[in-house]
């Protein structure tokens, strides 16, 4: 090999070496650059994904573990508890959780959080998975526009956790009955929803919020009636014993059923109002709507013992209202104490009659209605207390046409409307019974008793006389009669001489009669005997014939 000088070769060589190889090995720098890019992109993504940090306060942090307890929305983890501390006043537990970025939009002012624990109720068993996996924090987003980062957790899960599609309705009732949250809602014995909340309103009535799930919410119409289907409905009717219940769960946990109201019922409002009345039972629910009550007042000049608040008011036998108050009034003029009965009437309960009246425009306004009542009063409409039951003596108010009643003036200006009254039939009955009793009282019972007594005394004396004077004579007479009969008996005995003589006599007379008959016979055959006397008797021919026959 040539011994080329070292320096020039060193200077020569690097130049092509750099040119030919410089960029391929330098590609190695792509590796740390790529690493950095990946790292930075991860960092950016992480930072981007870093969701909101929220704080939820609970009364108890039972089972909540830092770093392990998840926050779940629709059973999907959207965050994790990062800290659990006591609040400053030590009253609540502040749970801090880091949520993923996509969960940020779920954090509304009315978003709800609750700790999911195993729960066993009458209607359902839930959260069993948390027995092993530990609790998690459930989450339900709200519909509010404002977002929020601090929340107050619920102590029990909401009945609706995942906002399913359906219809939320408010039911108003005087009392909630035995309804529990989660109690089923039935439509024709199908469970279509459940009670999600119930609360007491400031006015003392209860409000039950139910949720009807989506495919079935179409069954809720403006005419729908809701009623409490709790427990068992046992009714004894003309068709026998009728036991009705929605389901066993409804018996235990209570329930609500709904169905279309009566077909004749007018819609309450256009569209779904979202608020309904919760009736006590199906019968009550299915009655036609009562409409607004109208109050009337009645004065009775008689005792109304047995008339209670709530007693029915019947118009021609149809229940159209009830008594709301029974008061004692005072009339100055005649210093009497009339009983003033206030009743509320539901004109709509008159049914077809009401519709007919409405068609005539009688119900349009207060004035027309009152005028119509005035004509009715003129035709003899009267309020009358009647006995509803003879056993209990309970009264009801009957509005009936009594044309025979005296005419009264009808004042249409008084409010509430005052209806003329007549006294109750039960008083007439009472009066009749009184008159009867009086008549009985007027009878001269004592005198009758005295006369009767004298008569009886006389009778007694007569009998005494009979006993002392007539009876001994009679005894003698009887004795003599006895003797007579005795002797007669002896005379007629078979062995007595009379009897024997009589028998002989009879025998003799029979012989005599036989002889006479023979004579008569003879004379009949030989009438000449009377003159010539009796001929000697001829030999009979017959024996001769017999002997001649025997000879040969």
């Amino acid at each position, binding site marked *: *090999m*040539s*011994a*080329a000088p*070292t320096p020039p*070769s060193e200077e020569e*060589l690097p130049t*092509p*070496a750099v040119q030919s*190889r*410089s960029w391929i*090995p*330098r590609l*190695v*720098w792509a*590796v*740390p650059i*790529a*690493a*950095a890019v*990946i*790292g930075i992109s*991860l960092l950016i993504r992480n930072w981007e994904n870093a969701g909101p940090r929220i704080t939820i306060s609970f009364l108890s942090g039972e089972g909540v573990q830092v770093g*392990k307890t*998840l926050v779940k929305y629709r059973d999907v*983890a959207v965050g994790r508890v990062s800290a659990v501390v006591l609040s400053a006043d030590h009253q609540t537990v502040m749970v801090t959780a880091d949520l993923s970025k996509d969960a940020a939009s779920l954090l509304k002012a009315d978003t709800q959080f609750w700790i999911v624990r195993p729960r066993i109720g009458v209607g359902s068993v839930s959260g069993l998975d948390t027995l*092993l*996996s*530990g609790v998690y924090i459930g989450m339900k987003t709200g519909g509010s526009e404002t977002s929020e980062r601090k929340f107050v957790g619920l102590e029990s899960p909401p009945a609706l956790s995942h906002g399913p599609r359906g219809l939320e309705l408010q039911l108003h009732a005087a009392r909630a009955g035995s309804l529990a949250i989660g109690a089923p809602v039935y439509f024709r014995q199908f469970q279509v929803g459940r009670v999600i909340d119930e609360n007491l309103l400031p006015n003392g009535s209860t409000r039950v919020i139910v949720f009807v799930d989506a495919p079935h919410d179409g069954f809720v119409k403006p005419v729908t009636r809701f009623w409490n289907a709790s427990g068992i409905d046992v009714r004894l009717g003309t068709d026998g014993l009728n036991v009705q219940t929605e389901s066993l769960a409804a018996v235990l946990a209570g329930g609500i059923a709904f169905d279309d109201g009566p077909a004749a019922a007018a819609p309450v409002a256009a569209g779904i109002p979202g608020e309904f009345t919760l009736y006590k039972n199906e019968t009550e629910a299915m009655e036609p709507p009562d409409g607004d009550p109208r109050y009337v007042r009645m004065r009775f000049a008689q005792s109304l013992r047995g008339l209670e608040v709530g007693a029915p008011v019947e118009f021609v036998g149809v229940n159209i209202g009830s008594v709301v108050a029974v008061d004692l009034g005072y009339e100055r003029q005649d210093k009497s104490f009339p009983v003033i009965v206030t009743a509320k009437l539901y004109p709509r309960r008159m049914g077809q009659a009401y519709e007919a009246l409405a068609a005539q425009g009688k119900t349009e306004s207060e004035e027309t209605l009152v005028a119509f009542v005035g004509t009715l009063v003129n035709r003899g409409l009267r309020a009358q207390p009647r006995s509803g039951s003879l056993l209990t003596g309970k009264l009801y108010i009957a509005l009936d046409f009594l044309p025979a009643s005296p005419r009264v003036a009808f004042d249409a200006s008084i409010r509430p409307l005052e209806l003329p009254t007549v006294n109750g039939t039960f008083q007439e009955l009472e009066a009749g019974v009184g008159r009867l009793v009086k008549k009985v009282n007027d009878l001269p019972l004592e005198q009758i008793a005295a006369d009767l007594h004298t008569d009886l005394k006389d009778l007694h004396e007569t009998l005494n006389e009979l006993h002392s004077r007539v009876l001994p004579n009679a005894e003698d007479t009887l004795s003599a009669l006895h003797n007579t009969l005795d002797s007669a008996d002896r005379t007629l005995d078979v062995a007595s001489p009379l009897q024997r003589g009589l028998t002989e006599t009879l025998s003799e007379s029979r012989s005599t009669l036989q002889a006479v008959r023979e004579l008569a016979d003879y004379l009949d055959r030989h009438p000449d005997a009377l003159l010539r006397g009796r001929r000697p008797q001829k030999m009979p021919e017959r024996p001769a014939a017999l002997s001649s026959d025997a000879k040969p």
Partner: protein
Amino acid sequence: MTAFKQSLELGLIRCRTCGLAVSRASLRMDRRCPRCQSRIEHRTPLSTEMTLAWLIAGIVFYIPANLLPVMHTSGLLGEVDSTILGGILEFWRSGDWDIALLIFIASVAVPFTKFIAIGLLLLTVRKNSRWQQHQRTVLYRIVEFIGYWSMLDVIVVALTSALMQFQVLGAAEPRAGIAFFCAVVVVTMLSALSFDPRLIWDRRA
């Protein structure tokens, strides 16, 4: 040590493939071994640069490897994402200090040792230092030797994920962190491989 002569001083280059000693002057422009046609270099070209690149990549990868979870276990008792450091702490707390120590050495101590060692080697070579040349060579050999031991973590995760598949009762899945950790091990090994230990002994003006 200065008594040793270096090949360059003798004008010779040793072919790394067939061991032929070639005089520098006889090399042609294409710098191939006259016997085996392998490329002949006096020193691995751009060795320090490549080592540095791989090292930086390793360090960069090491960050997400530690931050991201390496394994996800789910079972009846919940779901847990575990990171390397978190796992070590958990083992330590639960009393399994030996396992904790093993994982610590494999996944923290070894990579750090490699970073520091390679960094030190690069620095000294760049400075042309004559300091502890022998020990530095030993250090290089150690780095080369322990390189793949960090794969312990990767193997643990791979085995656990493969074996622990009981559906609802329990399941383990690898997570992104272990891929980065694997990358760290591979990249640091490449880094060590790129380093030409002969540079330790080079004396340049």
